[in-house]
C-alpha cells in the first residue's frame, strides 16, 4: 500500500507525517503545477469546481509516480465535495489506473476506523502518537502563518518574515517527535518576533472569507496573503486547517460556541445552512464589519454553490454594516493580471475611505 492524498495548502506535511507514522509508504502528489491543472481540466466534467479538477490532477500525477492507494474525504452534502470521490474514482478507473480509494467521512469515529485500515503493524498507542504529531504540526504551521500575515505589511526589509516562515516549515516538516517540533515552532516564533518593523504604520486590515480550499491553496488564489501583505495589508484569514479540525472533527466547546455566535449573526441574512462555508462568509462579514475592519475579500471557486448564495447576499450585508466587500471567483482562467488589478482597485478604495473617515 503506497498512500497518496490531495494537496491543500501545507496540509501535505501533516498527512505525510500521519501515514508514515502509521507505517505506510507515502507518495506526495507533485506540487500543483500547470500540468496538474491541465490534467485535471482535461478529465473532469467542464463545470465541476476547481478543487475537484485539481484534486483529480493530483491523483493522476501521484498514481503515475507509483501510489496505489488514495485517501480522500467524503461528506453528506449539499456541497459537491461529498460526492467528488465517487466520480473521480470512475474517471481514474476509465483512465486505466489500478488503485484503492479510501474515503474518509468527516467524523471522528469514521476517521479512526479508516486510520485503522491504513495502519500497518502499529498498535493503538503508535496510531495515537502519529495522529497527535500530525495535528501538532498543523497547529504550529497555522500559528506561524498567522503571525507572518501580521508582520508582512510592517517589516522593514521585505521578505524577511516569509524567509523565516519557509525555513520553519521545513524544520517542522522534518520534526520526528513532539519535542523537536516544539523547539522548531518556538524558534520560528521568536525569530519572527525579532523582525524589525516600521514604526508608525497602520496597515489596512482585511478579512478573507469564503471557501476553504481557495483560501488555503496559494497556487490557486494567486498567492493572495503574500500579495496583500506586500501591498501593505494585514490579512486575517477566517479559516485555517486547525480551525476546521477543532470545530468539525473534535467539536470543541469554544468552537461550537463560536459557530453558534456566527450563525446568529448571519441569521437575518441567511436563515439556513447551505453547505460548505456559505453561512460563515456572511457571518464573518457582519462580525468584521462590526469590528471595524477596513474591508472583506470573499474568495471561492467558480460555480461553488454555497458561496454563490453568499455572494448574492453579501452586497446587502456590506451595505448594512458598512464594509466594502470584494468577491473573487477563481477558475482555471483566473490570470494573475486580472486579480492584481482588482485587488489594487479595492485597496485604493479602502485607503480613500480611511482618509475620508479620518477627515469626517
Amino acid at each position, binding site marked *: 500500500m503506497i498512500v497518496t492524498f490531495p494537496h491543500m495548502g501545507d496540509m501535505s506535511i501533516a498527512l505525510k507525517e500521519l501515514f508514515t507514522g502509521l507505517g505506510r509508504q507515502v507518495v506526495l502528489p507533485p506540487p500543483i503545477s500547470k500540468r496538474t491543472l491541465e490534467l485535471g481540466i482535461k478529465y*473532469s*466534467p*467542464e*463545470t*465541476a*469546481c476547481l478543487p475537484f479538477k485539481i484534486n483529480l490532477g493530483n491523483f493522476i500525477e501521484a498514481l503515475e509516480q507509483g501510489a496505489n492507494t488514495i485517501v480522500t474525504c*467524503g461528506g*453528506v*452534502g*449539499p*456541497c*459537491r465535495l*461529498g*460526492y*467528488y*470521490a*465517487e*466520480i473521480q*474514482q*470512475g*474517471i481514474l478507473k*476509465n483512465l486505466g489506473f489500478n488503485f484503492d480509494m479510501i*474515503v474518509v467521512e468527516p467524523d471522528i469515529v469514521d476517521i479512526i476506523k479508516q486510520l485503522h485500515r491504513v495502519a500497518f503493524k502499529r498498535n493503538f498507542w503508535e496510531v495515537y502518537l502519529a495522529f497527535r504529531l500530525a495535528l501538532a504540526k498543523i497547529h504550529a504551521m497555522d500559528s506561524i502563518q498567522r503571525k507572518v500575515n501580521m508582520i508582512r505589511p510592517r517589516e522593514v526589509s521585505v521578505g524577511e518574515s516569509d524567509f523565516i516562515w519557509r525555513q520553519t516549515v521545513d524544520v517542522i516538516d522534518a520534526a520526528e517527535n513532539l519535542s523537536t517540533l516544539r523547539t522548531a515552532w518556538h524558534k520560528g516564533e521568536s525569530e519572527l518576533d525579532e523582525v524589525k518593523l516600521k514604526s508608525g504604520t497602520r496597515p489596512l486590515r482585511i478579512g478573507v472569507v469564503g471557501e476553504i480550499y481557495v483560501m488555503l491553496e496559494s497556487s490557486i488564489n494567486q498567492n493572495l496573503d503574500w500579495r496583500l501583505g506586500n501591498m501593505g495589508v494585514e490579512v486575517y484569514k477566517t479559516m485555517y486547517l486547525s480551525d476546521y479540525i477543532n470545530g468539525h472533527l473534535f467539536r470543541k466547546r469554544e468552537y461550537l460556541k463560536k459557530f453558534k455566535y456566527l450563525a446568529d449573526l448571519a441569521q437575518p*441574512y*441567511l*436563515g*439556513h*445552512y*447551505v*453547505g*460548505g462555508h*456559505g453561512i460563515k462568509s456572511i457571518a464573518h462579514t457582519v462580525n468584521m464589519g462590526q469590528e471595524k475592519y477596513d474591508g472583506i475579500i470573499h474568495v471561492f471557486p*467558480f*460555480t*461553488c*454553490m*454555497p458561496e*454563490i*448564495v453568499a*455572494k*448574492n*447576499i453579501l*452586497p*446587502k*450585508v456590506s451595505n448594512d454594516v458598512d464594509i466594502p466587500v470584494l468577491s473573487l*471567483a477563481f477558475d482555471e482562467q483566473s490570470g494573475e493580471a486580472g486579480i492584481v488589478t482588482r485587488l489594487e482597485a479595492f485597496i485604493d478604495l479602502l485607503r480613500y475611505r480611511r482618509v475620508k473617515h479620518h477627515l469626517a
Partner: protein
Amino acid sequence: MTIRIGLPRGLLYYQYGSIWEKFLQELGAEVVVTGDTSKATLNCGSGLDEVCLPAKVYFGHINDLYKQVDYLFTPRIISVAAGQYTCPKIIGMPDMLRSNIDNLPPLIDVNLNLRQNSRSLYQAIITVGHMLGKNAISSLYAWYHAWQYRRMDQAIRYSKPNGQRIGLIGHPYIIYDRQISMNIIDKLNHFGIDVITPEMISNRQAAIAAKTLGKKIFWSNGDHMAGAALALIQSGQPVDGLIFITSFTCGPDALIGELVSQRAQALNIPCMLLTVDEHTAEAGFVTRLEAFTDMLIRRKQS
C-alpha cells in the same frame, strides 16, 4: 377581503406546485400563479449573479409577481427525504430574494426539512395555516385535501417496436419549462421520437437502480435523475439513447451528468450532454438534437 398569495412558476413549482396551489386555496387564499417563462422573465432574472438559469428564471417570476400580491409563497425547501438535500441555491433562495429586491411583500418561507424526521412537514403546514388565520386542524385538513389532487405517477409508455426511445434526463423545472428547455420534448416528438423523462419512472424503480451506485446521492433531484437514467439503460428493453439536459453552472448536475454518462458509456448507450443558458441559440440547439437522433437511427439500422 381575501388574501392574495403569489406563486412563482419556477424551480420546485414543477414538482409540488399543484399541491401548493390547492392547499393555499383550501386555506381561503386567492392564489396568483405567474404565466409561462418568457424572454422578459429571463431579462428580469439577471438580477442574480453567477446562478444557474432555473434560479434566474425563478427570480424573474418573483419580479413579475411581487407587486401584485400580499404574500409570496417561497417555502425554504431544505430536504424532501431522509438523508437528502435540495440544492444550496434552492435552500438559500428566500434569502437571495430578500437581499436583492426592496419592498418585497412578506415571504411565506417556512422551513421544510425532512432530512432527519418527517414532522417538519406538519409543522410547516400548521405554520402556513397560522399565518392565514387558520387553526392546526383545518390546515392539516386543507393539506390532506390538496394532496388528493396530486398528479399520479405516469407509467412508461412503450412505443411502436421500431421507434426510437430516448431518456431525457434533467430537472423537472428545466425539462418542463418550455423557455428553458427550448421545447425539447416537442422537438423530439416531432422527429418521431418517444421521450421518457425521470417523472415517468417511479420512485421505487429509480431507487432500486440507484442502489448500484457506490455512494448514495445526497441531492434529492439528482438521486432520482440518476436512478431513472440507470433504470432506463439497465432495463431489459433499454432506451436507444440518453440526453442529459442541464443548465450551465448547475452544481449537482456537473457531477450527476458525468456519472450518468460514465454508466451509459459502459453499457454502450449513446449519451449526449446538452447545456443551456440564457444565451443558447435555438438553431445550434436543433442541429445538435438532429445530429444525435440521426446517429441513433443509423445505429439501429446497422
